[in-house]
């Protein structure tokens, strides 16, 4: 199947806007779950307002949060897809820019040194485009994540040493959740990367934080760790918006990679309660838009 670059550009535009307006069903269910178990009255009223906001955003077709984020596109390209990689990246960039100028959206992207905003949500190496390949034949998937800055600023890496063991990983995650407090807009999804190199570890933390609620780490050891960490961080009493309560995180998600004999890296990347994402799936039948 040959990729239609006009359709890719349209989808890149559409996904950015949709992600900003409609939360995925698993996140909505996550809110219902927290609301049902929360015992603190202030926390309960904050969760109720968040749930109300999801409804208002849909009723008024408005953005859930004013932070349009850093645009990230995650691509999964099947073996039966015929495409020009350069044109693919250009089409995504164009779609991202058009979403910003045509909707219009706030461009939240500036040059890192001059701080100049081109008002396009684009800049050097932004939108971030991650490319991966799968064995799914004629399937091209594009996931869009507008990553908010409040939670992205809750990003940490520690090159633990082997002698610190898994205990070092666990205490690092708990301490970073405490340090973040209300700044990262809890209830959050705490993304944790374990292993790899420093850059891979950080990337895995981001991947984990963006995973759908209810999904589990494909590595059974990672799955065990995320279960333990999920229970532990919700014992801290930080609560929604850091104003106290049981609902500090929807979940902790872990992703793993093999690492070096002398290394034990751990990274944390937080996803705020506005855990936005949207997905387009291209097949010979057409383009399907979802989450």
């Amino acid at each position: 199947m040959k990729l239609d670059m006009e359709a890719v550009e349209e989808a890149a535009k559409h996904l950015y806007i949709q992600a900003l307006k409609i939360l995925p069903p698993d996140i909505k269910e996550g809110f219902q779950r927290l609301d049902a178990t929360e015992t603190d009255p202030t926390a309960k009223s904050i969760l109720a307002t968040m749930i109300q906001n999801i409804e208002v955003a849909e009723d008024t077709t408005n953005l859930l949060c004013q932070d349009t984020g850093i645009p990230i596109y995650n691509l999964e390209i099947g073996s039966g897809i015929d495409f020009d990689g350069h044109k693919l990246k250009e089409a995504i960039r164009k779609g991202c820019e058009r979403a910003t100028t045509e909707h219009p959206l706030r461009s939240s992207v500036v040059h890192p040194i001059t701080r100049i905003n081109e008002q396009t949500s684009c800049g050097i190496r932004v939108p971030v485009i991650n490319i991966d390949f799968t064995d799914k034949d004629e399937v091209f998937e594009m996931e869009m994540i507008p990553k908010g800055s409040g939670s992205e600023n809750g990003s940490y890496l520690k090159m633990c040493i082997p002698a610190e063991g898994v205990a070092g990983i666990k205490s690092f995650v708990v301490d970073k959740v405490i340090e973040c407090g209300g700044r990262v807009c809890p209830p959050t999804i705490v993304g944790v990367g374990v292993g790899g190199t420093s850059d891979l570890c950080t990337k895995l933390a981001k991947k984990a934080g963006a995973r759908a609620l209810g999904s589990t780490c494909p590595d059974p050891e990672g799955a065990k760790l995320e279960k333990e960490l999920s229970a532990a961080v919700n014992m801290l009493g930080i609560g929604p918006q850091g104003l106290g309560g049981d609902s500090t995180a929807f979940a902790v998600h872990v992703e793993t990679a093999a690492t070096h004999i002398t290394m034990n890296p751990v990274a944390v990347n937080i996803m705020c309660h506005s855990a936005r994402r949207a997905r387009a799936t291209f097949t010979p039948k057409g383009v399907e838009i979802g989450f």
Partner: protein
Amino acid sequence: MTEHTIHMPCTEEQIRELKVGDTVILEDWLYGIRDATQIHMFDKGRETKFDLNGHAVIHTAPNVKKVPPSNFCPAGYESVCIGTTTSMRMERFTRPLMEKNGVRMIIGKGGLGEDSRAAFKDLGGVYLAIIGGTAALETTWIERITDVDLEDLNPECLWEFRIKHFGPLLVAMDAHGGSLYDGVKKTAAERRAEALAAMGVAAEGASS
């Protein structure tokens, strides 16, 4: 816990009446301010044309649409989505904002630190917590954008909003040294050992 409705601008007496845990609904006027706005005002020496004396500022950078100026949109901007950003990055600007510009209320999310607590106490100010990430709802409390200053910083300009029933907002830091964030911080520190023990980890000092 008292519910207050305050028409802006307000007085120091009105501020001193507010206690942590109270809720506030603001009426009439509100100003939007952000990182770059304050970097330019306090580090680069730029002045604003607005008189912020007795006013409230909200940590925001809105989504706006440029339109031809009209009676309803005199500054040529229509609001699309207005929400709130994390306050802590702007901690060092609280005191100058109060001392130099007479601001009395800061609205934001996630709380402010020790310097702000001292400034609120010394000068008569409060921090009102809004629920971050609920911008669609917040936008319905803003009638329109009436004026703009430091426009070259878009979206981080200084925005003037006409508001109606803006809130309820939670008094999270008051003019008497009180802060709701203290209690939560203390609880989390106390429960850290328990959370680690549940995972079979002996608690030592916080990792860095």
